[in-house]
């Protein structure tokens, strides 16, 4: 999930999903590790929200990606594979 965000492939809903996952793990864990492990993610989400938002695609999760940034990296290997085939 974080990799997707760092690669500019994520959208707003991914951030919300990440937050929900942290909330789940934090509240339902048996041991202290589980209860505190989501804290680093949650605190970066709280204090560096702008940085997260700068990395996401502004497409509101409807599947349409206006920025070619993320797809350009993926498209290259596909083209090469096409030449080989």
């Amino acid at each position: 999930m974080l990799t997707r965000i760092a690669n500019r492939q994520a959208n707003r809903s991914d951030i919300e999903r990440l937050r929900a996952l942290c909330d789940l793990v934090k509240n339902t864990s048996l041991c202290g590790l589980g209860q505190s492990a989501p804290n680093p993610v949650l605190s970066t989400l709280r204090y560096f929200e702008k940085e997260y938002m700068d990395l996401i695609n502004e497409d509101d999760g409807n599947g349409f990606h206006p920025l070619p940034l993320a797809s350009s990296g993926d498209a290259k290997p596909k083209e090469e594979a096409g030449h080989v085939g």
Partner: protein
Amino acid sequence: MSVKTFSIDGKDVSAEETTTILEAARENGIEIPTLCHMAGISVVGACRLCMVEIEGSNKLQAACVMNVAEDMVIHTDSPRLREYRQMIVELLFAEGNHICSVCVANGNCELQEMARSVGMDHCRFEYTYPKRALDLSHRLYGLDHNRCILCTRCVRTCDEIEGAHTLDMAGRGLHNRVIAGLNQPWGQAESCTSCGKCVQSCPTGALFRKGSTVAEMNRDQTKLEFIVTAREKKQWRL
């Protein structure tokens, strides 16, 4: 032994102090979802599906391990708990390789039934598709780690009911898995009595009786051939 009075979902109930919230709820007709709990064996509180809210406490408690107390006000169902339960089931699906259509337990699976009852219609999390092994070394039974949800019911059953303790858990985090004997192929674990109780305890199709899988379904078409030759050539012996 003293009796405690408390309320579950607005219903005033009483139970002995050694009763867990889960047992008290079930006695009073309130169903709390769970996958790792099984009557007759010890409790671990591993699946986290039976989490309940207790008034006066921020922390959720696992109903299968928490004993009842005087004046406790318990809520077993709330939008928050429903959301958590659905997410837990989604994560179970994302963590393993649960392909219902080719599973021995399809239609007879507690995980599948749980997904239905919590209203899971899709998985919000990416499937991890882990590469996990399949142990078919045992004469009678198979162990498919792909379908294992690590509830440890088989481990507890093997230890506490059969007394063999052939099965146990090994590894941490993503590498956590059920092992037989001294981390051997199951067929080589000498302590196994082949009783099959583990297969009965498994909530999914991770433990199964050999011969019951889709791939092992054999059709005997020679019988049809026999009938045809018998009719046409009056030949009644094979």
